[in-house]
Each structure stands twice: as C-alpha cells, then as structure tokens.
C-alpha cells in the first residue's frame, strides 16, 4: 500500500469536517449589530461540529474529456472533550487498490491531529503525519487545505457584501492569509466565501492562486438538516471546479445519519484493524 493512500484517507477526514459537517449556528452578535466577518467565520467553524454522524460518500473526478474516476467510503464521527476533540473513522471500499483501507483521526482543537491508517496490504496499523496542505487530495481538485479546518488566526477576514446564491442569502467574505508562508502552504493568495445567513454553511467559494489568478471554484448544494435542535446542516453535494485545467471533482453524500450515540468502539485501533 502506498503513501499517497495514507494521505487520501486522513484528508478525507478533513474534507468531511469542513464540507459535509459544515453546520450552522446563529451568529452571536449584540442585538441589531451587524456581525463582523471574523464573527461569521468563527461561528461557521464552531458550528461545523456535529455530535455524531455516520455516512456513505463518494468522490468523482471528471477530466475535461468527460472521463471519470470514483472513490467510495463510509465514515463515522463523534465529539469528545466537550467538543474540543472530534474522532473520525473512515473505511474505503473503492477503487480496488484502497478497498479495506481504514483511517482513524483524533482531531484536536489546537494540537496536531493524531492519525492512524490501517492498510490491508501491510496488515497493520500505522501512525502517520500530515502532508503539505497545497497538495491535491487523492488526485482530485480538492487540495488538502480545502479539506482541513484552517486556524482562524492565520487569516484576515473582510465582509465584502451580501448577495444571494440561488435561494440562499449569503454574506460574501474575503479570506486573506496574514503571511506569505500561510499563502504558500495552502497555495492560495486569496479566497472568497459565500456563507449562508440562514444555515451558516459555505454555499460557494472562489480560490485564487499565488499569482492572483482565478484558480478554483467550490459549489455546495443539497443542504440537509441533520440536527434540528441545533439547526445544523450539511451539503450533500460539493463540486470543486479547476478553472485552469477544466477538471471537476464531486463529493456526494449518498447516505447520512445524525448519530450522537455512535459507538465509542469505532474510534479505536482495535476496530480499525477489523476487516
């Protein structure tokens, strides 16, 4: 089993975190006060957390000629430590060379994640470390940076305007890395997010390369209310289009359940090693 597959699995975790688990909470601002861009992004970050979930998802990569490649996996997530730690487990079923591969992630609020990968070809669990954030995730148009939860303090935020995307009224926020190092690490000089004012999830994103040219565009669609009590939504379909090479990558959630009682046993090396 190859190293790129390690990265695949652990970064799917991050993708799920940002994309599929993106949820909404009311933005906490004084009555009548307009929220700041930072307020909005903080709430998007906090609200992304779901007590527990289980899902079956697929990723389809489409090249400019219309040829496709597909990856499939199932996953479970659960919050611990009062929401400061999110544990996730993933199990891949396709394509054939990653079938049976499992990934266990302990995602901490401030520390580096702990990540283990079970590779059927090695027949054992391995602890791994992070990859560079600007790298492509699994050959898709999603970079690892797109899938990770970034540190809020690494960026400046600017509320540009309000506008609608389809039926969603959105805040439009420019996200600017504070340092050249941050920009280089994720490969973007600027990002613009459209955040739903009702659901507090990303509806759309535009990404600009280090030269300032339009690079990629993200569209989140088919939002599903998973936790009615906390008004938390998840986009069931995410499409990232590379405007420079014409390729598209589509994450589709085929089934999903809000499961706050997800078994703790899932998040152990013992379970990871089960076939």
């Amino acid at each position, binding site marked *: 089993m*190859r*190293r*790129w597959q*390690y*990265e*695949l699995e652990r970064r799917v975790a991050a993708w799920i975190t940002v994309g599929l688990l993106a949820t909404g909470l009311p933005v906490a601002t004084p009555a009548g006060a307009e929220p700041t861009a930072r307020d909005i992004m903080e709430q998007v970050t906090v609200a992304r957390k779901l007590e527990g979930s*289980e*899902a*079956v998802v697929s990723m389809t*990569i489409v090249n400019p000629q219309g040829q496709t*490649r*597909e990856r*499939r996996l*199932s*996953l*479970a997530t659960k919050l611990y430590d009062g929401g400061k730690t999110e544990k996730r*487990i993933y*199990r891949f*079923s*396709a*394509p*054939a*060379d990653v*079938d049976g591969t499992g990934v266990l992630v*302990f995602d901490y609020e401030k520390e*580096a994640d*702990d990540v283990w990968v079970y590779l059927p*070809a*090695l*027949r*054992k669990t*391995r*602890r*791994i*470390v*992070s*990859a*560079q954030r600007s*790298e*492509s995730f*699994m*050959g*898709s148009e999603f970079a690892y940076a797109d899938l990770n939860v970034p540190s809020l303090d690494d960026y400046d935020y600017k509320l540009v305007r309000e506008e609608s995307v389809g039926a969603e009224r959105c805040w439009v926020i420019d996200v600017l890395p504070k340092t050249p190092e941050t920009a280089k690490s994720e490969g973007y000089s600027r990002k613009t997010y459209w955040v739903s004012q009702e659901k507090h999830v990303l509806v759309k994103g535009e990404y600009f390369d280090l030269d300032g040219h339009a690079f990629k565009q993200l569209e989140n669609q088919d939002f599903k209310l998973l936790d009615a009590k906390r008004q938390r939504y998840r986009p069931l379909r995410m499409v990232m289009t590379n405007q420079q090479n014409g*390729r598209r990558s589509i994450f589709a959630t*085929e*089934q*999903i*359940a809000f*499961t706050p009682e*997800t*078994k703790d046993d*899932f998040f*152990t*090396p*013992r379970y990871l090693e*089960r*076939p």
Partner: protein
Amino acid sequence: MSVRACLFIASLSCVARSAAAQSSDAGLFERSQSDASVTSSAAGEGGVRRPTLHGYTRADVFAGKAVGRSRPEFQATYAELALRLGIDDPGVGDAHAEVRVRSGLDGVTPGPDVDLREAYVNLYLGKLDLRVGQQIIVWGRADAFNPTNNLTPTDLRVRSPVEDDRRLGSLAARLWFDLAPLRLEGVWLPVYAASEIPSVGLPEFVSSSEPRYPGPALSNGLGALRVHLELPAIEASASYLLGHAPLPGLALRDYTVGVDPPVVRIARAAYRQHVVGADFSTALGELVAIRGEAAYRRPIDYEDTVQAPRPDLQYVLGVEHDFGPVSVIAQYLGRYVFDWQRETGPAMPLDPLTLVDFMEPLPIFLRDTIDTSIEDELRLRNQILFVQRARVQHLASLRVEWRTLNDTLSLSALGLVNFTTREWLLYPKVAYSISDWMSVSVGAELYAGPDGSLFDLIEDRLSAGYAELRLSF
C-alpha cells in the same frame, strides 16, 4: 467431547447470541462496510447483508539472468486470478477467504497452482475478539524489516511486485482482549509451516532430502503473547513468543559410504526459539513519524543444534516525512549476535572419495570426522542464511515514493544496504493507474553482495526486472 468443553461452547454461544441481539441496531457505518446495497442510494435502513466478492486478474513477467550465465532468461511468467470473499454479520462476526489460481512459470510450482491463501472467521464477543482459521499475521511497527515478526512464514521464491504476496497463511487462533488503553493479544499456531527461500547451489554429491519439521502435536505449536499500549500520543507493545522459527536451517540427514558416487543428504530443519520483542511509534507534531522495534531471540539449545542461529538482538529505528508529494521512510537497522564466532567451514573439507573408499560400519573416529566436517560446512551456510556473518551489523533502509499526474503515477523505490557485509538490495517500481480498476507496473528486484554472501547466493535467482498488467474488481 468433555463436559467442560460442552459448557464452554454453550457459554460461547450465549455470548455470541447476546452480541448478535445487540448488533441488530447496527448503524449505517457498520452496515455500509459489509453490505454493498447500503452504498446504493436506493438502500433502506435495514439493508440485507450480502457476501462481497473482490479480487483481480493479472499477468506478470519476470526476466533476469539465467542462473550461472550472463544471458537473459525468463524467471517467471504467469497469469493469476485472485478471489476474495467476505461475509459479514455486523457486530457479531465475519468470515473472509482468498483463493488464488495461478498458471504458468512462477518459480515455485511448474504447473497450475491453487492456493487457499486465507480462510478465517472472526467472532466479536464484547471486549474479546477471536479469529480462527488460515491467516497471515504480521507483527512490528518498522517498515518492511520487522524483528518481532516471527509468526507466519514467507516465501521469498514468489515473484510479484507486491511485497505482501510473499507472505504465507498458517492455521492459527488469534484473540484480542480489550483493556483500554491496554490490549492483550494471544496467538497460537498448532501446525508448523516453514518459510521458503530460493534453492542455492549444492556440491555435486550433496542432495536435499525431506525436511525435518515438527509434526502436528500440541507440544509442537507456537504460542505468543503481545501487550499493546494504545494512547493518542504514542503506541507501543511488548511481546513474547515460544515456538519453532518460520525460517528453518540446514542439518545433516545422512550419508552413504561405499558407493560411487557418494551421497550426502541434508535437510531443512526447524528449531525452537524464545523471542522477546517490543516496538513503538509516535509523531513529532506534523514533522515526522518515529517508529522503533527490537527483538531478542534465543534459539533453544543452539550450541548443539546445527540448524539454529546464535542468539541475537535486532533493532530498528526509523522516521517518516513527506516532502510535498514525495514521502520518505528512512531507517537504521542493527544486529548484535551473542556468543558469536565466525564460522569458517570444515578445517578439512570432506573429500567425496573418502566416502567411496569406506564400507559400513565406519569406525567411530572416522564417522565423527566426517560428521564434523559436514556439520562445520552446514554451520557456515546457516550463518550466511541467518545473516550472522558479523558480531555487529549496521544497515540502513530507505523507501521513497513520488505520486504525480493526479495520483495516477507512482515512482517508488525501496533500498537496503548492509554496511557491514556490503550486501544491498533495491526494488525500484513505476506504477500507473490506467483507470480506477486497471493498472500497469514495471520495476526490478535487485540483489548484490560479495562472493559467498546471502545476497550473492540468491542474486542469480531473484534479481530480475518485471512488468505486470492488473485488473482489479
């Protein structure tokens, strides 16, 4: 069957039924791993558990030097079908089996070959997991070279671009007991199965005879225990093993005298050993993963067992880091041999004519002389086989992989250098995914070493370039 055994089985059944009842509410995550229908958007919450069937068909060709000559020759060319069947009862247990059917020249068997590589059943009983059947067990956290991995055998004669294909299944019972953050693991292998290596040239009057392997007696089984410590920041384990080593040595079987030509028969012979091991892995933030592993093995009665190595301590310390799309695993490996002495072979090499010229019964002093001469030669060969030609050895391994072209092209290499014995191996490989299901790979397996070293002896038979076309399903 004894009353006690019946009671045990009855209680096991009760626990299993209880676990089954609890599993009836198996969630989406569990069901999705066993039931293909769950991955279909049309599936309902109560998806039926269907068997899964995966596998591949591949065609491989290995070409290297003809043994003892400089011209190129096919070493292996074959087609293979692999079928992997899985049946799952979420939360209760599952069963898995893999059958491989191979036809062609594969360097191991001359004709079509059917191999039940694995066939085992898992039973999950709360904190206890049990696996019984034909299975492959791999221990150790280091990359590729694992001193603590002394359970199921390998077959180095197997020609395949996939390292895992050299592992062989054995009949075994394996259990885990969860005491988080500790986890106990026990392994029992009731039937001995030997590792295989390429045959190396024997003198003209020496032949191989039936191996001397332990029979399927209870006392001949291999038992092993391992305690895992699994914390978020670090995981480690300590293990102990008692049983026959997978890789047998060479021993004298018998010889004939008074006939022309003379015959000396040697046999591969197993030996028992104690192995105490430990390993760990951790990470320094997002910088590197660190892994270490060590094992002390002590063959039983090694002084009087010609086929056994001397006690030794093997240790590995490695780091893994990514440089963008390039991942690198670098390791230092060492070996210290206790009670070491350099085997030099017989002081008076056996002259085959000596055997022709005598008749049974041989005088005791003469038989002792012949026995000693042959066994000294075997000790030399075993010391080469067990990689104990120096008291202290220093080695390094490096694995590099670069993924590019949207992760469809992989350029990788695994190398090992023994600085002490000046042996080395290199496995370069290029693999391209033509589609999600079809791939092609080309590469090489190269061995080299000074005259008389292990890699020198196997170089003719194993050094080769290869190409493979595979379709997985």
